[in-house]
């Protein structure tokens, strides 16, 4: 049996979210190197703030400043940090109750070793060198009894500058003050949006049938599979016949000729497009198959393509073949009379 093919699958997207009134204030304060919490109806201070009171469900009446020091209420040790985490070297994850707060926040503690971590330890915030109005403006926390880091000294300078720039909030000159607290272009504007980059890495596994199909393509063959129950031939093969739910085990080699079941003319350009529009993407019913196969139709004007048109695969030079459907560059008109409608009517 063929070993299933595997390949890396990289997923990347940036989530952009609106913050809403409470988190907007929170993030705006972070940009200015201050941490806020919300006071609940029960007088407990939540930091980070709640958006709706867990008891009364009301929005917070107002936000109060907490920290910048706090107490570790629980911790664990991250010996081998993962991509995207706050520090590249080993660190402690901790729940930290900031001074003035009754709830804890989760963040990293740059403690050097697990031996330096303990429940009840005092920590202080270490600000990022530049702030943007994001939870990562807090670079991490550090033991409160240790020396201040370079980044924090700089942050302290920023805080002083912040006081100055707030005093001169509306003056053009504020932007010229050395090391403005807010690093965004317009510090007077509240932060209302945030963007979170997400990068995930997978190993995609093709099914056994898909793997045989891809190996076939590398030999210039088109391999489908037949359902033992209904006799339908699927290409590419699926894990199971979608009509009967049973594996399609019998391999069937198909011709590289077929009929255009339906098609569309692509007029819209997009990044990474292989062919300049306009061009035709078609559902091609290969001879002997019971399910259409997606591919391009080139070699004629788009307005010459029609349902029922007979087409033939145009393979790339053999030297360029791999384990991919791209071994077929496109389909081109076969120059035969059109197929009767009845021959593809069930595949529209």
């Amino acid at each position, binding site marked *: 049996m063929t070993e*299933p093919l595997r390949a890396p*699958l990289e*997923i990347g997207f940036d989530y952009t*979210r609106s*913050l809403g009134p409470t*988190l907007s204030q929170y993030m705006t304060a972070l940009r200015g190197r201050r941490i806020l919490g919300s006071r609940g109806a029960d007088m407990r201070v*939540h930091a*980070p703030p*709640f958006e709706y009171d*867990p008891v009364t469900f009301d929005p917070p009446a107002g936000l109060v400043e907490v920290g910048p020091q706090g107490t570790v*209420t*629980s*911790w*664990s*040790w*991250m*010996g081998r940090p*993962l*991509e*995207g*985490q*706050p520090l590249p070297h080993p660190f402690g*994850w*901790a*729940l*930290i109750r900031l001074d003035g707060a009754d*709830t*804890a*926040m*989760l*963040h*990293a503690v740059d403690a050097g070793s*697990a031996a330096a971590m303990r*429940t009840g330890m005092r920590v202080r915030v270490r600000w990022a060198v530049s702030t943007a109005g*994001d*939870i*990562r403006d807090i670079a991490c926390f550090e033991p409160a009894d240790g020396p201040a880091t370079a980044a924090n000294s700089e942050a302290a300078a920023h805080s002083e500058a912040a006081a100055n720039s707030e005093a001169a909030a509306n003056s053009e000159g504020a932007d010229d003050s050395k090391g403005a607290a807010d690093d965004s272009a317009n510090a007077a504007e509240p932060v209302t949006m*945030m963007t*979170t980059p*997400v990068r*995930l*890495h*997978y*190993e*995609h*596994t*093709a*099914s*056994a049938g*898909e793997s045989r199909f891809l190996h076939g393509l590398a030999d210039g063959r088109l391999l489908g599979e037949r359902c033992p129950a209904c006799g339908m031939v699927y290409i590419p093969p*699926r*894990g*199971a*016949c*979608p*009509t*009967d*739910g*049973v*594996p399609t085990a019998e391999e069937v080699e198909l011709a590289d000729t077929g009929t255009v079941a339906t098609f569309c003319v692509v007029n819209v350009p997009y990044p990474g497009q292989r062919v300049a529009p306009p061009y035709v993407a078609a559902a091609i019913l290969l001879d002997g198959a019971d399910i259409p196969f997606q591919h391009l139709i080139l070699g004629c004007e788009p307005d010459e393509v029609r349902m029922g048109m007979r087409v033939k695969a145009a393979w790339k030079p053999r030297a360029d073949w791999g384990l991919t459907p791209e071994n077929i560059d496109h389909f081109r008109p076969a120059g035969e009379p059109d197929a009767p409608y009845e021959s593809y009517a069930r595949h529209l």
Partner: protein
Amino acid sequence: MTDIAVIGFAQSPCVRAGESTTSGVEMLVPIFAEVLQSTGLAKGDIGFWCSGSSDYLAGRAFSFVQSVDAIGAFPPIMESHVEMDGAWALYEAWVKILTGEAEVALAYGFGKSSAGDLRRVLALQLDPYLLAPLWPDSVSIAALQARLGIDAGIWSEKDMAEVAARSRAAAASNPQAQLSGEISAEELLGRPYIADPLREHDCAPVGDGAAVVILAAGDRARELCERPAWITGFEHRIDSGALGARDLTTAPSAASAGCAALAGAAGGSAGAAGGAAGAASGAAGAGSSAGGSAAAGVDVAELHAPFTHQEILLRGALGLGDDVRINPSGGVLCGNPMFAAGLARIGMAAREIMSGRAGRALGHATSGPALQQNLVCVMEAQQRSPVKEAQ
């Protein structure tokens, strides 16, 4: 109210990295065949299908759609999906039967946890503003919870190792388990931390798998199964998404779901309205405050506890005493296929009743960080209202 029972269950082997695709088809085809054969049902007899799975686990959008190939959905079927563990798909199937829109329903869950880096993938279930941007991994969050319980004296690293040792020994009788075998707690405690205070044995292994459960109503259930596992309580609850605002040494959502689900079992007559229902929930409340006797009469519980300390926490929250057999399957510490493992707990608990080994069984499923969401399904050998449900 319609009486509904679990009448069939099947589970694929749990494997570290299977050859299945992320569509689950290869794992599902054999277990659909197994569960239909064991119940004598044909595909066309299933009035409603519901799946639980995750696109983030698969790394592609609408990954569950291709899983429908495993059913063979022709003629067209009535079908739904939850982006949750299959246990919540089972809940939807149960509601579907309650509404009268189906008499027999099938729920399934599948997950190829090995496709990506599970610890990072699970960070995306966290608060997207304050937590997810830091990429806290699932194991580290569980470790924070474990230490809170250790510091509070609720459990110890030794207690946790004993849970792991007992689970692996129990899994020796479960052919689908990923891990099993005899090992002492002392030996486990000699091993290094992977996320202080958690060692490898404290964490469920990463694995791929699928599970399926069939429900049937009233007379149909009796026709299809000699000893149906009648559902007498089925509840789910959720705790706050603000991790640092929760008391992580307990799980109020588990306690609440358990109390409500067990109230059905304790309440007796299901046909009684208002007053009797109020009395039943009152009794459950009293039971809870009396230190867990609400769960009296539960013979066996399958708990979805992906970390050893969470089993101890759940026993407390659900009021399960020392006389209750816990996880005779070995539990998810011996095989935790994401999005199938919770459903499999209910299936395993039901199997205890269907086989005659238990009179009352509790299946539990969890989701989210540090037991944030909890679902409890209580099943009994004795039907709640054996006659005249048409009234």
